[in-house]
């Protein structure tokens, strides 16, 4: 079953992106402590994103007429893999590059494409995604934030929460109700592009258990939006979001969230000269799993390249991948603390505990484990 998930190779011309990109990444990551690099796609650095944009590494899948690279999903895979492996701070452009830009390209008007896509490719327009609300988490179809038609556009009222990077973003693409009531479920939902500098928008960062504030509450109080805030078709929001989630769930970020910690641990045991059977076994197990998950992730990308929307395949890979990411801090913690007479660098300890504390989010963001397993069950023909 799921035969379309088959070993695929990254084309040589896309592999060639790695070397020049590494030099650019190294300029930024050289001065970052391991525990900072472990934040990876939670790490915000607008200047780094602009540098990536100037060098042509953003909007790789977009047409050239919008400032894109016209390269395709494999090229983007290579770039994302390099950024995550190095622990580069990519949060600023992350959502715009990954899902807002493809969404605008697929469903936007020509005017919207011309307005939003070039600055995304330059690393100058940052986006966030307004999905969750206080009463709507996994049950996304129950959103209550509402946009009413006015003579000249829309009047937006309501609240979003757990919105990653809202306080650093220029725009939010929000899933809102434009007709009917929450009882209508998937009907009557639309996606609107909200300028976060508009009057009536209030953003309140939320501090997490690691001390970071990467997500926020966003309040809308009589926010007036123009007609062209609507992206795609009115009432088509659910279908559009589903297509968008295939992009959100399919990338290598679903297997690499703990890779900075893994590499730091490998360097530690190498420096300690510890090559015994148990150590080799743990290193080997984590390596075999990474190799297999990477192959699965590339094969999901191959489905994107083939023009498909691999929702079920992406869910399989994300569920297995986030389980792997979450196992790494537990296994490495056990290893380090079971060698109490072998001193570990305080920065390694700090990185371990950062990843241990944030790891529960890996299987929450972008669709919980339970939601993904439901999607897989549907793909198996059980629903």
């Amino acid at each position, binding site marked *: 079953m799921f035969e379309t*998930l088959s070993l695929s190779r990254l084309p040589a011309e896309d592999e060639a992106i790695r070397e020049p990109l590494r030099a650019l990444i190294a300029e930024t990551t050289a001065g970052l402590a391991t525990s900072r690099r472990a934040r990876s796609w939670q790490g915000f650095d607008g200047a780094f994103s602009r540098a990536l944009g100037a060098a042509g590494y953003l909007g790789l899948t977009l047409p050239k007429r919008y400032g894109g690279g016209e390269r395709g999903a494999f090229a983007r895979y290579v770039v994302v893999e390099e950024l995550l492996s190095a622990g580069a701070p990519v949060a600023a452009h992350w959502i715009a590059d990954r899902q807002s830009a493809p969404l605008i390209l697929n469903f936007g008007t020509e005017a919207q494409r011309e307005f939003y896509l070039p600055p995304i490719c330059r690393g100058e327009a940052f986006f966030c995604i307004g999905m969750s609300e206080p009463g709507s988490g996994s049950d996304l179809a129950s959103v209550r934030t509402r946009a009413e038609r006015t003579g000249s556009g829309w009047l937006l009222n309501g609240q979003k929460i757990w919105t990653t990077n809202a306080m650093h973003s220029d725009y939010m693409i929000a899933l809102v109700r434009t007709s009917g009531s929450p009882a209508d479920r998937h009907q009557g939902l639309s996606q609107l592009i909200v300028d976060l500098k508009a009057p009536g928008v209030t953003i309140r960062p939320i501090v997490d258990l690691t001390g970071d504030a990467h997500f926020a509450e966003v309040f809308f109080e009589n926010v007036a939006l123009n007609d062209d805030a609507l992206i795609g078709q009115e009432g088509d929001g659910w279908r559009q979001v589903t297509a968008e989630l295939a992009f959100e769930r399919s990338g290598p970020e679903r297997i690499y969230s703990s890779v900075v910690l893994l590499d730091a641990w490998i360097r530690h045991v190498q420096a300690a000269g510890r090559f015994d059977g148990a150590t080799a076994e743990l290193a*080997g197990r984590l390596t*075999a799993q990474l190799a297999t998950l990477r192959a699965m992730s590339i094969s999901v990308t191959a489905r994107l390249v083939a023009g498909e929307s691999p929702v079920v395949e992406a869910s399989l890979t994300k569920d297995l991948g986030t389980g792997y990411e979450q196992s790494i801090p537990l296994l490495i913690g056990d290893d380090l603390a079971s060698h109490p007479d072998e001193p570990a660098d305080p920065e390694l300890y700090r990185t371990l505990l950062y990843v241990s504390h944030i790891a529960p989010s890996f299987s929450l963001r972008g669709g919980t484990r339970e939601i993904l397993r439901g999607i897989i069950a549907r793909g198996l023909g059980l629903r």
Partner: protein
Amino acid sequence: MDGNELLDPFARLLEDVATPAQVRKIEAGGSIAPLWDALKDSGFLDALVPEDNGGVGLSLDAIGPLLQALGGNAVPAPVAETMVARAMLAAGGIDAPDGPIVLATLTQGRATAVPLARVATHLLVEADGALRLIPAEKIEIGATGVEHSLAGHLALSDLGSAPTLPLPAGGLRPVAAVLRACAIAGAADRLLQMTVDYANDRIQFGKPIGKQQAVQHQLAVMAEQAVAARMAAQIGCAGGMPPSLAAAATAKQISSAAAGLIANIAHAVHGAIGISEEYDLQLFSRRLHEWRLADGAESYWAALLGRDRLETDLSSVDYVRTRVAGAAAA
């Protein structure tokens, strides 16, 4: 030739000659001759033999789907092993016998539970740093005492005068491990399909058990493991013969670790019927356990892979893309 042109006739052949009834008959001591003659006549046994030597000249990667089909049909004959052995014999200039051949790595003359050893006419044996083709009657092949199993414990006191063949880099185990990984992937896929079908048919509490979220989530995990096992098996095959240590280790580490989980979920969802002899589930779940243990289980390969990985100063991503996937792309 695309995958289906190759796979379809092979799959049809297996469905014809390796039905569950025929598998049971052979496991009960019946002759494998009808099955073996059909396979020999099909020409598939020489799939890996170079065309110059009268074979088909396919790569390990190309026949990966066939190797999975062997597992998916619980074929009670060492077809994959014979394919590999015939290619190695051809490379060494030795005429291959007509009968089934198994691969065995002997340490101090012994090997434990070599699958299908008791139906083989010959064994391609790695011992003392060399490969030798040895007739089965020259080796003591003891029954394992495991019900229905055709595996055998091997003991060989004298290597005799059999000519030696060059040993592939890394020995016989890496390629044997990749064959097991493929068989596990094939059986895992068959078990997944059987288990999903059963969950849709079996009514409890007034509805199919597959409508229960607790059952759905077990099947989702099973599907993930089955896909991972297949992907790992493909990694093992991708670089051709002989597979690199890193590729073979990845294939067998992942597939062996998945095998036990998959067998357990298949049985959990099936309930009591699954452990009855007359129901076909056991044909596949027993094999998953046998193949998991054959030619090194998950921790054996994890340690070998880990040692190789720790000897490099590569990042984890660079290691997997240049040593595991990279070897595959060669």
